[in-house]
């Protein structure tokens, strides 16, 4: 029988450290089974009960480390393609097209008529499509950490936050979305789940938006007028970001969802 001083003390510390988690009791019960099994094996190899317990606890990792991993993993999912991430891929593909069509319709028509109204509605749909697409990217990675969550919140709130800039609201909206997408891009690159090429394009776009913004500010301070530059200068960074997002969207939409069979069964029985 193993000396029971080290393991109960360790389990008490672990219980205290994971107390905020719903499955705290299960975590501790599983840890206890694991530790006692390691002790049994080590004792069978000739260790004393105390040596075996000390090694079992060391190999398991400190209660602080295990609790930290438990807490961080409790907010993550599995980085697998699902039907929802596939739909989000289609949304990411659609968002730039909706923006393009909406912008074109908005500019090409006067401020009245059915065509103008349709264009405004289509333009309005581009934003939820983008947000759903970003959410899908986050889900595809099983979560993108605190930075990813913060970036998604900034993206969701960007239309409201940009009102603070009054006449420059559209510029602030672009900057906020660019920053959110940049953070997303960097976190996705770090996660190494999706292909590097579209991620690089997704990151390059927002960097170009920020660089352009800084250049425009510098020009304004030197009495220049950046407002006279051709439209392509302003649109290129946005187009780059849109191409990167659409590319990622295409990739998400082509993946085999792990819940495909289940969805089909649900449909068949409904």
């Amino acid at each position: 029988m193993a000396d029971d001083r080290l393991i109960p003390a360790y389990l008490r510390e672990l219980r205290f450290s994971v107390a905020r988690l719903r499955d705290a009791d299960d975590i501790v019960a599983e840890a206890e089974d694991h530790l006692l099994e390691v002790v049994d094996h080590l004792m069978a190899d000739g260790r004393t009960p105390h040596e075996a317990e000390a090694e079992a606890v060391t190999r398991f990792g400190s209660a602080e480390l295990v609790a930290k991993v438990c807490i961080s993993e409790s907010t993550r999912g599995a980085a697998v393609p699902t039907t929802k991430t596939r739909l989000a891929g289609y949304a990411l593909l659609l968002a730039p097209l909706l923006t393009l069509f909406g912008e074109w319709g908005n500019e090409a028509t006067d401020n009245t008529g059915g065509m103008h109204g349709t264009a405004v509605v289509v333009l309005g749909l581009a934003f939820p499509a983008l947000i759903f697409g970003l959410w899908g990217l986050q889900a595809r990675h099983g979560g993108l950490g605190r930075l990813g969550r913060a970036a998604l919140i900034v993206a969701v709130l960007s239309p409201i936050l940009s009102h603070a800039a009054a006449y420059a609201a559209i510029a602030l909206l672009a900057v906020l979305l660019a920053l959110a997408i940049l953070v997303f891009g960097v976190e996705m690159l770090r996660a190494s789940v999706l292909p590097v090429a579209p991620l690089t394009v997704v990151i390059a776009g927002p960097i170009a938006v920020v660089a352009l913004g800084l250049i425009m500010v510098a020009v304004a301070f030197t009495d220049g007028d950046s407002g006279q530059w051709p439209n392509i200068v302003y649109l290129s960074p946005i187009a780059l970001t849109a191409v990167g997002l659409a590319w990622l969207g295409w990739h998400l939409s082509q993946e085999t969802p792990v819940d495909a069979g289940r969805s089909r069964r649900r449909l068949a029985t409904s």
Partner: protein
Amino acid sequence: MRADVVRGHLDLLLLAIVEDGPYHGYAILDELRGRTDGAIDLPEGTVYPALHRLERAGLLTSTWTEVNGRKRRTYSLTPKGTTAAKEKRREWTAFAETVQRIVGAPPWPTTA
């Protein structure tokens, strides 16, 4: 092998092991160490949270039994987990082949 490198591929490793299961946590870790000749040696307690996450995501399912008076949790793959394991294996193979094309290629220009 560095723990952070392993952690990036932990889901695939766990799914691939449990595919041959069902296994309880200790057995999974034993397989992980055994199949890699000890090259993968994470702090054992940090693998359990990943197993719980995979269960929450519906890729694994677990059952509790009593063994030698102790509560024991055993994991098996769900149908969704089987598909995920296949998909992750395919992703890993494609990734490894791509990297190998670069790092395993002869220096340029070749003299052959």
